[in-house]
């Protein structure tokens, strides 16, 4: 292509056929190109996101039914309408799991984001020692996957190994039991908080660093203390980053699975249906009822989508209300 066009280029003909030709060809290429760029992602999106969701939704309206009856009866898949949804939504185990998830979220999200915000604001203070050492240490758990974090904390909780219990015994205090029906939710929450504080702190800290420092200088000249600067200037300017971290924390809460599942071999207070995702897993792979599991999956996915869209638009309206 280029070799045939070069003479036209060299001669720099104003109305050369070559230039005209090439313009048409690049125009055509530029029209096809974006589709080629987007195509691999689109195929994967359809294949591993859209079709699974559609297929799961389809399965959620079906079930295995025995036709004929007796020993000779045959199992076959038939359409059963909303039966799976009714069964799923009337199962008290699902509500127990959802209740635990709400408590878990009420512990994890405010504590994790509160600590992340506190650490980010402290790191941004002018005269703080050990800034990079503490920042990197707090960020470190991000590199530890949830399963391994739960393994490590699980051993710190496990009565026969726990150094925490040993310390309590040495001082003469009753050692805490991390695996009772009431304390275990705190033990699981602690793992999630430990794993998430650092990442959220870095996101907030990065956002803080992009605020022009002149803002603080003029506030300081006006006699504002660091605390007032943090409360009146920094936190309001962090609103978009807080919305983002809040939504991601909420999505993570809805899908909590790794931590309780990993702790469950160490204790018997975490049942197989302890959290909604564990219940779905148990329905699908222990009870072999993929139809109920599909129905519950669809419910959880829908609730997540509605909640995050709702919170996003609500918070955006509040956070950016003045701009519009």
């Amino acid at each position: 292509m280029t070799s045939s066009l070069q003479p036209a280029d060299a001669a720099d003909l104003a109305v050369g056929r070559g230039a005209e030709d090439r313009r048409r060809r690049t125009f055509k290429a530029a029209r096809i190109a974006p589709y080629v760029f987007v195509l691999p992602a689109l195929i994967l999106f359809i294949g591993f996101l859209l079709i699974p969701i559609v297929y799961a939704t389809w399965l959620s309206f079906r079930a295995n039914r025995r036709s004929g009856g007796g020993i000779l009866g045959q199992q076959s898949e038939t359409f059963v309408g909303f039966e799976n949804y009714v069964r799923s939504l009337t199962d008290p185990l699902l509500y127990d799991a959802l209740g635990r998830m709400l408590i878990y979220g009420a512990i994890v999200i405010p504590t994790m984001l509160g600590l992340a915000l506190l650490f980010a604001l402290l790191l941004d203070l002018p005269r703080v020692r050990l800034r990079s050492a503490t920042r990197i240490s707090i960020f470190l758990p991000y590199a530890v996957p949830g399963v391994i974090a739960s393994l490590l904390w699980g051993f710190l909780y496990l009565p026969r190994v726990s150094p925490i219990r040993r310390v309590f015994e040495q001082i003469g205090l009753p050692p805490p039991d991390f695996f009772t029906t009431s304390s275990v939710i705190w033990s699981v929450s602690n793992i999630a908080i430990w794993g998430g504080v650092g990442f959220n702190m870095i996101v907030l800290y990065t956002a803080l660093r992009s605020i022009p420092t002149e803002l603080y200088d003029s506030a300081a000249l006006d006699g504002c203390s660091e605390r007032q600067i943090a409360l009146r200037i920094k936190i309001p300017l962090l609103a978009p980053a807080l919305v983002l971290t809040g939504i991601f924390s909420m999505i993570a809460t809805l899908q909590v699975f790794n931590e309780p599942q990993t702790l469950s071999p160490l204790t018997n207070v975490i049942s197989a249906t302890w959290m909604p995702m564990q219940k779905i897993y148990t329905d699908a792979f222990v009870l072999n009822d993929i139809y109920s599991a599909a129905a519950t999956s669809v419910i959880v996915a829908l609730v997540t989508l509605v909640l995050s869209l709702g919170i996003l638009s609500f918070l955006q309206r509040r956070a950016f209300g003045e701009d519009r």
Partner: protein
Amino acid sequence: MSLTPGVAQTRAGNTKAPATPTPTRQRSGRSSHWGATAILVLGALYCLLPVLWVLIASTKTPGQLFTTFSFSPSFTGGLTGNIRGLLDFKDGLFLRWAANTVLYAGVGALLTVFVSAAAGYGMAKYRFAGRELIFRLILAGVLIPQVTLAIPQYLLLAKVGLVGSYWSVLLPSLISPFSIYLCRVYAMAAVPDELLEAGRIDGAGEARLFRSVGLPLMLPGLVTVFLLQFVAIWNNFLLPFIMLSDDSRFPMTVGLYALLNQGASQPALYTLVITGSMLSILPLIALVLLLQRYWRLDLLSGGLKG
């Protein structure tokens, strides 16, 4: 890090009358200094505690684990014994898991970066029919939790007969709506239209423009996307947990979980779990510490505005 002293200097330098600083500001500054440092150190200790513990606990023989205070290290050759025990376990199964993790998370994240970079660049730099629809679909995809997708993905792959293969974990990991979204935001900010126009006038094809103009300019953002996706795949436990049944295809997380599960009846395996956890997080911590300076996390918080 290098910014910190500079910022402190400008803040001090900008004060118009350094000879007469307001006493209240100075006092509050000095008191916040030690108080703030103390709180940060406490936070750091909390975050380091389990990591320190696993380093120490992996030096203990199975007997010592249950009998000695687990925060005092042992120097009786427990560590080398544990590592040897782990490497010998079922003919080096642990190394298999390590290699599988590199495949799923490393190769997976790399491929995701290519797929997402192309899609993000395409949506940021071209106007075409269907662009808005595709972008809205992807935004909705960001809000759907990975984990709720795992079971539908399993059901579908079971239908196609791919369950249990390497593909069953690798392929679903390649689509990351959030990565595509970040790439689009970054391409819009980092790749100027004028540069692409200039390239077109010089006769460069669209693929060539992407390769030699788009990708290099997007590189800092792509490093961020790679790290986020690497950690996301390595964190996604449910997907390999339900897809795989052959333990030679397990990633590290599923392998260690399976070991822990058996450990409930054979506590000697706990030492292997602890040593395995220690060995598997060290390279990842090194990777994150090494790459964190290339991170562009302002991409995340800026993303909502874009």
